[in-house]
């Protein structure tokens, strides 16, 4: 594999329970870039991430650079309400006891925050904790499924600013799934538009033409344009 390529996907096909979810998807991810996978709900974005993680069976080729370490922030992690558990204990479920102090600082919390009960977090705090979870083990690549926009608990740093900072500080490669167009413009180097089969690929400015967007979203695009204006 070429030097700066972290991930190479070729003719990826995923079929789950008889339904074809992804068709003939090919793309590459370079080291240090932010790749956004954009598409409407049900386009197979989450399935793509999980397939990259090795959770789903697939046909085609997924080649990670050898020895690459991957961190993953899933879309929905229900709040931990059944069990009393503090953040430090949550982190140790990953099997690594060190690093907890380091990762909690990375996502903008104080060390003392580790003793906080995980059931008492706000959703914004919880998302940050999940990012911290993904950072345990010092990954090279971060897969992030639908970061919630509009939540910023510190009042200063949004989740995207956090990712941007992490990317620079930790030299992370980030693959991000979203249906939020504004994220693509602000934050990503490259975008793949996905609606079961790939619709477009390239830098945001190159590919996000009105034609492509209406092909991708159909009726929905008006809403997004509107959303983007304010």
């Amino acid at each position: 594999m070429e030097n700066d390529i972290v991930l190479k996907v070729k003719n990826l096909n995923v079929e789950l329970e008889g339904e074809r979810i992804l068709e003939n998807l090919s793309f590459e991810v370079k080291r240090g870039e932010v790749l956004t996978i954009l598409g409407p709900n049900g386009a197979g974005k989450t399935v793509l991430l999980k397939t990259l993680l090795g959770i789903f069976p697939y046909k085609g080729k997924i080649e990670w650079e050898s020895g690459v370490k991957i961190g993953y922030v899933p879309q929905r992690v229900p709040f931990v309400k059944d069990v009393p558990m503090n953040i430090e204990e949550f982190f140790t479920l990953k099997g690594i006891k060190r690093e907890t102090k380091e990762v909690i600082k990375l996502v903008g919390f104080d060390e003392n925050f580790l003793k906080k009960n995980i059931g008492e977090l706000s959703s914004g705090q919880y998302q940050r904790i999940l990012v911290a979870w993904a950072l345990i083990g010092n990954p090279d690549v971060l897969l992030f499924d639908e970061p919630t926009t509009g939540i910023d608990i510190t009042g200063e740093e949004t989740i995207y600013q956090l990712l941007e900072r992490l990317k620079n500080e930790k030299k992370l490669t980030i693959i991000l799934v979203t249906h939020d167009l504004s994220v693509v413009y602000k934050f990503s180097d490259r975008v793949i538009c996905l609606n079961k089969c790939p619709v477009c690929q390239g830098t945001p400015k190159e590919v996000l033409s009105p034609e492509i967007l209406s092909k991708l979203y159909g009726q929905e695009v008006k809403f997004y344009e509107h959303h983007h204006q304010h």
Partner: protein
Amino acid sequence: MEIQFLIILITVIFIGAIAGYLGSLMLSRKMTIVVDPLSHLALPGVALALIFGKDISLGAFLFLFIGTILIWFLESKTKLPTETVIAILFSASLAITFLFLSEHEIEEALIGDISKIGFFEGVITILICSGVFFLLQKIYSKLLLISVSEDLAKAEGINLKKYQFLYLLSISAVVALGVKFVGGLLVAGLTALPAAASKNLSKNLKEYYLGSIIFGILSCLLGSLLFKVTHLPAGPLIILASALFFLISLIFKR
């Protein structure tokens, strides 16, 4: 204190500890309810054991083990929720039990009898408890992670099926032992109540599972002592003792 009662006390300490430890996991996986039907699944085994004069736990475990494999298999084949699969098997097994047992035997199967525990049974029980304890200790954090988020667990490369199987196996073993002590009707309380009490009082995971173990031990000890004094059936007394601890924990709830 006579030797036999001492053996009973030591044995119930182990039972209480392992039931509490397992219970702390089951509460988190919303699986507490599962123990109840699962314990009924054990009843045909108990019935056979009583008919052939074998150890109750042995019969119970055999049936639970077969049942567990069946549950595990049906679950992955049919995609029905575990609870539903267990409910199907449990009503069938309860029906079998009532067909074959006499009234007295049914009572023993349903509420247990600790007075029969001798040295040999005590040692076996303690060994099994220790084995399950070490198994649970190994899989505890992984099971907890699975219960927090299957996605996170899968991303960590955790084989969900394997751990679910080990988990059901542990439950089978503990339920099989519990059936002998508190009976098939009450064994759910043995695992659920200590964990629930501990949850009320603890602020982190360590306190929670340690508390659950301690409440399990205390409930079994108190119940057995009450049995010694009152000569009422031990099983219900043990469960009432843990219900008492649960009530107390409500008062001090954080």
